[in-house]
């Protein structure tokens, strides 16, 4: 699959973090920028962080032009990624419903649909009846606390298989000469005259002029090695799966008002996510009441699921930004680049994120799509405030 090499003394660039985004970054560095003398270093096993823990929802129906640009860039790459990697990432364009439960939410979602249309993002508004037709399991009764008023539907959205994406990228990276070094933790980053000179790791010092930090959840702690403080907070985010059942949920269902989202995997499990815990934590564990609330919400929305059973539950660490948008940026330290702060919704951006970040790293100049997500937006105030699009997530 991929080689397991010993780290070389030096590389042209080192990507910290062997998740989807990190491997995608390395892949595009090698493929599009000819940088093959690079390494991806991973503290544990590749795909073992948020890549292996997320609910793999793919969509690009974001409100603001900047977000639509990057997520749609990703969506386009997703569509052909399996073939490009010659690895089945099980991309399933089953459609994503974002439910509206009141007039205000409906207004916000319609604004998004319109913005999406003009941004060339596939998105449409369904009324409650159309929602029911598209996804019969949804309860559209008006006699519930959060009746379904309608929903946006992005037909090209859907899910894919997280492990396959990670493995597919890793395989392709390795084939191009990228060293993927697992069980290798970064313990420090060396600089001279304000520029990166290498990384200290548990497997020795690695010399490099460029360090790309792609460590979702841990972005702040890597940055803190260079005394860089970020507008990022790390929170627990939980998800769970049901026992496998025959096909029931034909698409992705998301509801911000009741904090739940749900899809069904190829194996038949319902894959269900919730809101984040409000406190920061690196423990990969959230609170049980979040799961309980999520289950109540799901029973409201999809009544037939009530008797199904939760089979496995887990938590990840998501790093969130004040404007619910990521940071893809150069930093005050030359040669140190950050890609993080994706909050709960990073998975869907994986190929797009890696693609524009690779450009940023290779050229030491932000890719046009990445430029709005630079750190200095917090100074100027030019935030990309996607709270509406990602209040729960994704």
């Amino acid at each position, binding site marked *: 699959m991929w080689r397991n090499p010993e780290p070389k003394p030096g590389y042209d660039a080192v990507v910290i973090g062997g998740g989807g985004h990190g491997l995608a970054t390395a892949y595009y560095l090698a493929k599009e920028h000819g940088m093959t003398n690079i390494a991806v270093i991973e503290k544990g*096993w590749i795909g073992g962080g948020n890549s292996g823990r997320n609910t793999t929802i793919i969509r690009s129906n974001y409100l603001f032009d900047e977000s639509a640009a990057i997520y749609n860039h990703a969506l386009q790459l997703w569509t052909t990624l399996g073939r490009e990697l010659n690895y089945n990432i099980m991309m399933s364009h089953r459609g994503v419903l974002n439910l509206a439960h009141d007039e205000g939410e409906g207004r916000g979602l319609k604004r998004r649909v319109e913005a999406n249309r003009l*941004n060339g993002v596939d998105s449409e508004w369904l009324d409650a009846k159309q929602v029911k037709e598209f996804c019969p399991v949804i309860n559209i009764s008006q006699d519930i606390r959060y009746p379904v008023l309608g929903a946006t539907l992005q037909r090209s959205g859907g899910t894919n298989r997280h492990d396959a994406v990670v493995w597919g990228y890793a395989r392709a990276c390795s084939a191009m000469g990228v060293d993927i070094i697992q069980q290798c933790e970064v313990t420090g980053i060396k600089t001279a005259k304000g520029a990166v000179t290498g990384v200290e790791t548990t497997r020795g010092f690695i010399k490099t002029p460029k360090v790309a930090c792609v460590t979702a959840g841990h972005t702040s702690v890597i940055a803190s090695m260079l005394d860089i403080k970020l507008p990022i907070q790390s929170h627990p985010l939980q998800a769970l799966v049901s026992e496998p059942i025959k096909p029931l949920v034909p698409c992705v269902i998301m509801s911000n008002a009741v904090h739940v989202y749900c899809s069904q995997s190829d194996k038949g499990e319902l894959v269900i996510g919730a809101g984040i815990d409000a406190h920061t934590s690196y423990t990969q564990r959230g609170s049980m009441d979040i799961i*309980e609330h999520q*289950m*109540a919400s799901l029973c409201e929305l999809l009544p037939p699921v009530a*008797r199904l059973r*939760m089979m496995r*539950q887990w938590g990840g660490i998501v790093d969130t930004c004040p404007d619910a948008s990521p940071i893809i940026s150069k930093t005050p330290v030359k040669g140190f680049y950050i890609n993080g702060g994706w909050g709960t919704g990073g998975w869907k951006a994986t190929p797009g994120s890696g693609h524009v970040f690779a450009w940023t790293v290779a050229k030491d100049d932000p890719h046009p799509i990445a430029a709005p997500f630079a750190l200095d937006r917090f100074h100027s105030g030019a935030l990309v405030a996607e709270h509406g699009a990602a209040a729960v997530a994704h």
Partner: protein
Amino acid sequence: MTAQPNRRASGGLIDRSKVVRFRFDGRDFSGHPGDTLASALLANDEHMVARGFKYHRPRGIFGAGSEDPTALVQIGSDAARTDPNTRVTEQEIYDGLEALAQNVWPSLKFDVGAVNDLFSAFLPAGFYYKTFMGPLGNWMAFEPFIRKAAGLGKAPGAPDPDRYESINRHCDVLVAGGGPAGLMAALTAAKAGARVILAEETAALGGRLLSVDPDKVNLGDMAPTAWVESIAAELAGMDNVTVLTRTAAFGYYAQNFVGLWERVSDHLAPNDQPANLPRQRVWRVRAREVVLATGAVERPLVFHENDRPGIMLAGAARTFTHRYGVLPGKRVLVFANNDSAWEAAFDLQSSGARVAGIVDLRRDIDGGLLSTAAEHGISIHPGAAIVGTSGAQRVSGATVRRMSDSGGVEGPVTAIECDLLAVSGGWMPNIALFSQSRGKLVYDEDLSAFRPGQSWQKERSAGSAAATFDLDGCLKEGARAGADAASKAGIPAKAERPPKVEGAERPQGTPRVIPEIPSGRPRHKVRAWIDLQDDVTTKDLKLAVNEGYDSIEHAKRYTTSGMGTDQGKVANMNAFALVADALKKPIWQVGTTTYRQPWKPVTFAAMAGQHVGDHFHPRRVTPMHDWHKSNGAVFEPVGDWLRARAYQRPGESFEAAVRRESLAARESVAALDASTLGKIDIRGKDARTFLNRVYTNAWSKLAPGKARYGLMLGEDGMVMDDGVTACLADDHFHMTTTTGGAARVLTHLEDYIQTEWTDLEVYMTTVTEEWAVASLSGPDSWRVVAELCDGIDPDPEKFEFMSHTTATIDGVPVRVFRISFTGALAYEINIAADYGAWLWDKVMEAGQPYGIQPYGTEAMHLLRAEKGFVIVGQETDGTVTPADLRMDWIVSKAKGDFIGKRSLSRSDTVRTDRKQLVGLLTEDPTLMLEEGAHVIATATEPAEKPVPMLGHVTSSYDSPTIGRSIAMAMVESGGARMGERLWVSRKGGTPIPVKVTETDFLKMREDGDV
């Protein structure tokens, strides 16, 4: 109906006096109360109950409890009450129970899906990843079929009619597991006076004590069940103890928060289920200390063709024999690597089975065991292995060969007939909860398994969960653990003396673990299952490692080993061992996959508890709600509130109602229930200073009796809330907030007072619902107020705009504010909420001569838009500054700092080309814009995407007062575009031309501009 041929003559925790009839796979069977579906089926000599996930090979009953990986059925055929993936080893039978085979077609015994088995060589681990990568779309075309083939049981087709509950409990000592160790722990802690909860997963206390030969073992001169009953009775007699059976501790969370799942009535026929009790409960336990007495799980042996029905864990066979009085086989072959399985063989033999042989991987067997075997006349095969099995839907025999020194097999093949193959690979402490608690595991070389190492939370393990396998040791360790737990919880305790144990069995000794037992067959022809549910074989795992998935998590994910509904309870350790073996690494280095919550699958609805349906979330209503409801109101949810949106008369459309209401508010008088607005009483000598700091405008000079509108920002400079604040006295203010922002604003203000400006003397108390509010709007509103209120002259000439006063209505005190959110003459009457309904009646009565109309939020939104007033959350979205709203007038330049001030001068916030609030008038006055539609600069929508967007429509109404449609929008450089022609895009139509205007449409009409 069969006659339960495998039922033993006596014994077991079943009620033989009663017969229970049930159906399985379309056939009728009988059993007794106390039977699980598994024991009843076995009593009827039915071993095959399911088929494998991938290859659809026949699957039998492998375990006797929650550890069983494959014996899954669908319970019930009622659309609303059907439970997929139910373990027959856990489902107790009741009269009329119907169980269906799942994931088979057309039937369990003849299943077309079994054809997959023929192609198994082409379905290796990772098959899907490597396949379907041909022409694009290939995967998408295949996926629906793959999805249909996947999945096990079926979800119900209708909403669940049953009730569920969750309950919070605190205790000093929680004991998880009601076996010998758990019972002693609970007894010890309880006797010391601790509050104890004992949770036992199965229907009865006793654990492994229920699976031993009662004629052989006794405790304190009592048979095991009698001893268990005596302890149970003692515990039941203490009111500091809660004993829960059918209750699994499923999740160990932070700070000794443990979730228990109780199946209250799943074992009863629907008609027998107590109507007052929920179907299931979740107990949310916060324990001071925890004792984990969760027992051990028996490990399967991994050998060629180890997956046939009739192949069963040896311990499970004993459980069926003694706990349920069922002999699961007549001719039993035992395959083992440890001593406990020999005890099982002797036991089965004494219980009426014929043991056809004991095959043990170990060459050196204890002399005692050998002589006992000889006494029983059992043929033994030490240092040998089973190298194959036979039988289509039930095992019919096995072949045995001697193990060679080199780790293979050699010599002649012996065929042995059997109808039950009892296997034992040794016992593994059940460390699931311990690991969930974040304790560290240690790999025990003697055990070839993990056991608890270092604790993190306040817990200790006891008994076989802590790798103590002898009964006497379990009892003692349980008592010690109970004493330790109680003492650490602050209740000094001494370990109870355990009963004297006689006839105890020999524990397992040191098992000889061989990750994959040799069969002498070519590698590619070996089919040895690791995970019986997900059909993962040793070949799959080795392939994964060979392909580079050498982290245990990678191997698991690539093969799906341990990812079935049992989460690999019996399979995982073998998978770890096999991967370690393939990697030639010690197991501790390979590690384990993570033991995640829940220990076993827990019903969604039980997690949700009673907080569903009517109790899902409060519907907050005002004191006037009943009036609204009985006067044609249609409601809308606003935050947690239900607000009347419009009052439709019979036959009247919603739109017509809104027009009528809004016209009344302009031309005569109309009343809005404004009770939901947030209200905060602010008092203290620094109240003005405080207001100056939290609002953008100045408050130093607001006199008592006056009120002022204020805008509140976050530190990022963005509009967060707005409202009118009235000065009641020099140091006393009444603030109002938006309906949805009430709680957030109070917290925001308290935050600053409590943590930032601690020197300010200000107290705040919410009074939101103390006051019911009727807001009267329209030229006649003052007349209605005059009619209603005593002690006030509301004449607009005398009672100034933005002032307030107290008055009475029939002697009831009210506060009257002259403020307006409609632009019309308006008054707000505040009254103690107990009088709210009465006030509303009075208002309607007093207003009748003027044709008063109630108006809802829709008309309110329209009215304020006519005046160009913003709604926070509609015009704003967290990215809007006061300047963006073109409300610079409300930002004081003169006063000092206020929250968000500095952010208003950042380089991005001072841009003049930001989106700004403007009015939009369609050129065709009958056209109404869509809210959320986008403003563009061209008359036709460019085909090329992205289309540059100038902004979006925030509010849009058909205004009867203005006599045309009106809209507000946030538009790039909007303030500088007055009079400009722009277009609003729409799907499937040409863009609508609009003129950019000011937002005060009323004024424009007065000025003749519209």
